[in-house]
């Protein structure tokens, strides 16, 4: 579904991603871990071109999205993204947050979008918040609505950039729970996170990125129980 070939990203002289090759298949739940500054967020943001790669190719559903002629806006509709800082639109209500993109992009009319929003909010138990503004919500509620906002576009893959890092500890659970449900429904997911429990439980594959390279990857049990790379061993010994 997503194929990354020789991906390089440089900020000035600083090489953040160093020649990454990776393929993500439909239905996979890929969790990316690594120390901060290792390039894992940059890798994720390259997948929907929020960061423009310095070199290399990214293919999504048979299209080379790094080719100059590609309509990236079209492809981004199929790649939902969830941010660390939620990035809900503060001047719009929850309902408007969810329906803005589908309506303005002409994918749904207003009634259909509102119905879809109500349905999605019902699913996460926040239907009564439809007319609230983001600032009236808790962090956990904000992030769950941000997830639902991305889902309203019916994406084929969901990208999560440290979705629980900005949350108070007691709110992490509700967001992870929703992500787990999403995983069980068969969504393809790429998740950058520090939640090792989530990685172990939900991931079909875990990647360890350090210094811009994928140093090790495996299915979660082997990844956590028998790490091979010395840096991964050291990293896991610190975070587990």
């Amino acid at each position, binding site marked *: 579904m997503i194929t990354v070939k020789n991906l390089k990203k440089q900020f000035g002289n600083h090489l953040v991603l160093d020649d990454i090759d990776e393929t993500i298949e439909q239905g996979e739940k890929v969790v990316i871990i690594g120390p901060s500054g290792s390039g894992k967020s940059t890798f994720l943001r390259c997948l929907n071109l929020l960061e423009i790669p310095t070199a290399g190719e990214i293919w999504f559903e048979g299209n080379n999205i790094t080719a100059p002629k590609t309509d990236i*806006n*079209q492809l*981004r*509709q199929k790649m*939902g993204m969830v941010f660390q800082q939620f990035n809900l639109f503060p001047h719009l209500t929850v309902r408007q947050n969810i329906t803005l993109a589908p309506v*303005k992009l002409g994918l749904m009319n207003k009634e259909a979008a509102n119905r879809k929003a109500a349905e999605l909010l019902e699913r996460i138990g926040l239907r009564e918040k439809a007319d609230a*503004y983001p600032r009236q919500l808790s962090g956990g509620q904000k992030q769950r609505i941000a997830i639902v906002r991305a889902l309203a576009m019916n994406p084929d893959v969901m990208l999560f950039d440290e979705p629980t890092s900005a949350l108070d500890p007691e709110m992490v659970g509700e967001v992870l729970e929703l992500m787990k449900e999403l995983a069980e429904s068969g969504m393809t997911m790429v998740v950058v996170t520090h939640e090792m429990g989530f990685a172990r439980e939900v991931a079909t594959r875990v990647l360890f990125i350090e210094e811009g390279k994928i140093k090790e990857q495996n299915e979660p049990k082997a990844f956590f129980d028998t790490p091979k790379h010395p840096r991964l061993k050291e990293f896991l010994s610190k975070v587990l």
Partner: protein
Amino acid sequence: MDTIRDWFISLAGRYYDAFITEQRYQYYLEGLLITLEISLIAIIIGALIGILVAIIRVSVVNIKGLRWIGIICGCYVNVIRGTPIMLQLLIIYNLIFTSRNTNEIVVAAVCFGINSGAYVAEIVRAGIESVDKGQAEAGRSLGLNANQAMFYIIMPQAIKNILPALGNEFIVLIKETSVASIIAVTDLTKAAQYIGSRTWDVLPPFIISALFYLVIVLGLTKLLGIFERRMRQGDNS
């Protein structure tokens, strides 16, 4: 005691001459109307130019082929902000509108609009840059293009942030229009000068027209305060 009384009577007489005699208040009112006319047109022109220039300047930064447009906009802002408004007015009046039947009011309104546009552009640009980068990213990640993200997500938030600064700019603009009298526009300031030349007593008419400006500005300040409160209430409901 008598000297104080006489002083008051003569003072009242001076102001009576400057305002009532020969129905001179009509000059002030006509001048006021022209001042308001110039200000209103200039505010509209300034806002349109300012928003346009600001959006262009923040948008073309990342587009290689269009950088020259950004440079032109930057020159416009720098030249306008770097030269006195009185000279801009004289230059535009003498350079461009040299024909005999020029409408001075229109010239002044256009000139002040162009002038204000440069300041508004900087205010709006600061407002756009004050909106968190994540907002645009969230919009783009949903598939909106750059214009849609700007229009539906960035601008509504930017406008709210810059409203006080924008109001301030409009207040400054209204007062600056008093310079228009040098190209023979009979605005509020010119009316005062004219009456002063008739009564041989310049101080009272100047003070009277200053009061007019003060009332307009205080009224506008009040209006903007109400407007800002309204916008904030929108957040809470």
